[in-house]
């Protein structure tokens, strides 16, 4: 009976593990099976290097470059906002705040992480966009700038909580060594604590990047939706995720347009895959 329980336990956990791996391969397989047929009609060159995304015109064209730039622009914008604020928050919580302040701030920031993205989108549309129109004199508030701010706020808790974890695992002994040599708190934080936690901190940036580039609802609502290569931060853009989510409802099953959306998804998948791979290879490799 005991032996049977052991075997059962092993089998259950084994199948749980197998299931997640199967799901991963299932998704990848679907992406490629549905995405690749597009290249029978559209050249890889056009897909990668043309910025003309006219999937429903009489003369269809499927250049994904503008969409790629759209995704990149809002993601970089989000990181520009979230990296300093997220890291600053982490340093404050881990190094400066007293234990009582910490107990208040930490759960509040975690609450920020629990807000659904559609609520962030609403905040951007209903508050931030009109605010920007009134205050900086632009015609439309739905653009890279707005999307970056909203996405940035959304990924602050990811960056701050993961960075804070990394900072608080820096051994006390290293801080003492630094203080003992006559360093101030600022010098200790910037020269010893942050460098010692850099793996985790950069990891948090990568996670934030992945979250921002994959975010769909916020960019549908506030990025403006125009498939063009932007020339200013106040231009509207159409990120990859927007095209996939919005256009899927309008496509005919099995059409080139249908397949092209899977091709966009492959692109998105490859971007995040490369970022993850890069972090695994260069960052988390144990330093000798």
């Amino acid at each position: 009976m005991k032996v049977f329980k052991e075997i059962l336990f092993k089998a259950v956990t084994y199948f749980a593990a197998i299931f997640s791996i199967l799901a991963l391969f299932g998704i990848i397989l679907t992406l490629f099976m549905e995405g690749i047929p597009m290249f029978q009609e559209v050249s890889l060159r056009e897909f990668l290097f043309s910025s003309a995304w006219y999937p429903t015109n009489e003369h269809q064209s499927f250049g994904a470059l503008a969409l790629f730039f759209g995704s990149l622009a809002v993601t970089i914008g989000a990181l520009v906002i979230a990296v300093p604020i997220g890291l600053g928050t982490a340093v404050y919580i881990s190094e400066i705040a007293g234990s009582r302040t910490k107990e208040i701030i930490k759960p509040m920031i975690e609450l920020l992480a629990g807000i659904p993205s559609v609520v962030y989108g609403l905040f951007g549309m209903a508050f931030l966009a009109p605010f920007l129109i009134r205050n900086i004199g632009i015609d439309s508030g739905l653009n890279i700038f707005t999307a970056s701010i909203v996405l940035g706020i959304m990924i602050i808790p990811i960056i701050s909580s993961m960075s804070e974890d990394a900072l608080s695992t820096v051994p006390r002994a290293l801080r003492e060594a630094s203080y003992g040599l006559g360093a101030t708190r600022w010098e200790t934080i910037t020269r010893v604590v942050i460098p010692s936690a850099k793996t985790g901190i950069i990891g948090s940036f990568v996670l934030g990047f992945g979250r921002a580039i994959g975010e769909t609802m916020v960019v549908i609502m506030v990025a403006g939706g125009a498939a063009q290569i932007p020339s200013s931060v106040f231009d509207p853009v159409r990120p990859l995720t927007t095209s996939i989510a919005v256009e899927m409802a309008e496509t005919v099953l099995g059409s080139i347009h249908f397949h092209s959306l899977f091709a966009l998804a492959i692109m998105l998948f490859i971007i995040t895959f490369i970022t993850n791979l890069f972090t695994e290879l260069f960052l988390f490799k144990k330093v000798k």
Partner: protein
Amino acid sequence: MVKELIKTKNLKLWFTDNYVLHDLDFTVYEKKITALIGPSGCGKSTLLRSFNRMNDLIPECKIEGEILLEGQNIYDSKADVTDVRTKIGMVFQRPNPFPKTIYNNVAYGLQIRGEKRKSVLDDVVEKSLRDAWIWDEVKDRLHTSALSLSGGQQQRMCIARALANQPKVLLLDEPTSALDPKSTAKIEELCIDLKDKVTILIVTHNIAQAGRISDYTTFMYLGDIIEFGETKRVFTVPKDKRTEDYLTGVFG
């Protein structure tokens, strides 16, 4: 002629409601090695950490009294704590090298004070590593990570790092308790060699070590200084029964 370098006056210390150091008056003589011994929890490490204001980092800690370094109270409201810690360096129980190169570890103290000239940094790094008897072992790999050194080497590098600030006093908090006998012996010899340059205050659990290297010995028990005097005298004719019992291993 021995000169008094540090004097504590009515030093009292609490961790919240826990009265840890009981009104201590204590003297450290210049260019001598003074050992602080006593059973665990007697307050010897806490006393040591009071000399470079390391206890300031603990919010629950409250201190009264004075510690005079060459007549200046280091707890004076006008005293600069970073300056105090530069003059009074510290080496900890476990080697704690920064995850940086050996060179940048040793140069850290100077770098945070804004020294950028490479020739100055090079000189100080070399001199400090020589003074800590580790130069020959690391001179060909100054720019590799300090974490690649052995425990004993790391601890000597930490001594070099503290010496680079040219401190008047070096506080050693059980510096050999995490090391093997061979590395321990080397650090003990190093201490004796260093006392011409710097005053050393060492906390140790190892009674024999205190006997081997120190000029003066202080025996502490439950927050009080029970006995202070020249090591030879304290070890041979202790005045207090408790000192004798501790030294002979009746309790520990």
